[in-house]
């Protein structure tokens, strides 16, 4: 009888524990999502801030699109060496996947038009 009462109390306490645990988990998840979103935002900000320094004066940015998953960039440069240097600098960023360089058109007014695509990692 005593054991049964004990058992009943334990079941009640267990329910309470499960509710608390769920609540705790839900809050933790929300805070974690917010933290991740903030981290991504800071990565995007960092990327746009350092872009001019990475490009230098020889590369002219024409279009830059960044969303939560992808960076897409269109620009023009005066020679391949400068462009490759820029792409290798991009590749060094730890929150970017390996950038994919595509040359769109060559020697239009002594300029090489190119595009770079890279995935943004969850870091």
């Amino acid at each position, binding site marked *: 009888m005593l054991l049964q009462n*004990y058992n009943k109390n334990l079941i009640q306490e267990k329910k*309470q524990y499960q*509710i*608390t645990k769920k609540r*705790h988990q839900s809050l933790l998840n929300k805070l974690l*999502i917010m933290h991740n979103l903030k981290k991504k935002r800071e990565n995007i*900000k960092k990327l746009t801030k350092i872009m001019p320094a990475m490009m230098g004066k020889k590369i002219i940015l024409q*279009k830059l699109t960044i969303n939560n998953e992808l960076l897409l960039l269109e620009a023009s440069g005066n020679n391949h060496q400068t462009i490759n240097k820029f792409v290798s600098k991009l590749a060094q960023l730890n929150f970017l996947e390996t950038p994919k360089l595509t040359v769109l058109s060559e020697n239009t007014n002594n300029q090489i038009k190119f595009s770079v695509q890279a995935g943004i990692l969850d870091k």
Partner: protein
Amino acid sequence: MMKFTNYDFQQIGSWSIKIKIAVVFVACILLAISSYFFVISNKLYQLKIAQDNERQLKQYYTSTHRKISQLNVLYQQLQTLEKIYNYKMKHASFQNQTFITNNIYQGAKMLGLKVSTIKFQPPRIFKNLPMQPISLSVRGNYQLLNKLIDKLTKLLPHITLEKLQFIQEQKSYLCNIGLAIINTSLKMDTPPLEKGD
């Protein structure tokens, strides 16, 4: 066999003492064996079940007790988390559309940027978090546009940058910004606590 016929069962009292003891001994053994099979064995089986049950209940009690002993720590952690969450949400939830619009315009104006559009999209839910997406287009110098984004993230700490697009125009850049404000109150997925809250 012949000897047994010599004993009269009607006159047991006349039997020798040795025979009497032997008969009583055999009767006792028979009684013990029959009582074991008909009474005790059943009780023993019940006792075994009860013992198993008791062992299981003890194990259950021990494991549950261990969990319950962590409950107080969990309550304290939960309260701390709720305080942090409420604090964060307090800063996110008070801002209305006019407040946000005014701040974006003022921020852009101070930096010499020109705001083309500000559009409040229909609110949506992202992983249980209600969000207010806003899209805006601003024209100006690349560095100044970056400063505006910086300002916005300082002013509204709970915004996410969903899309950022810089398009080169003749002398400046057109910047299309897709952002979302996390706008939520403390909504629980589970029923509220009954105690310790």
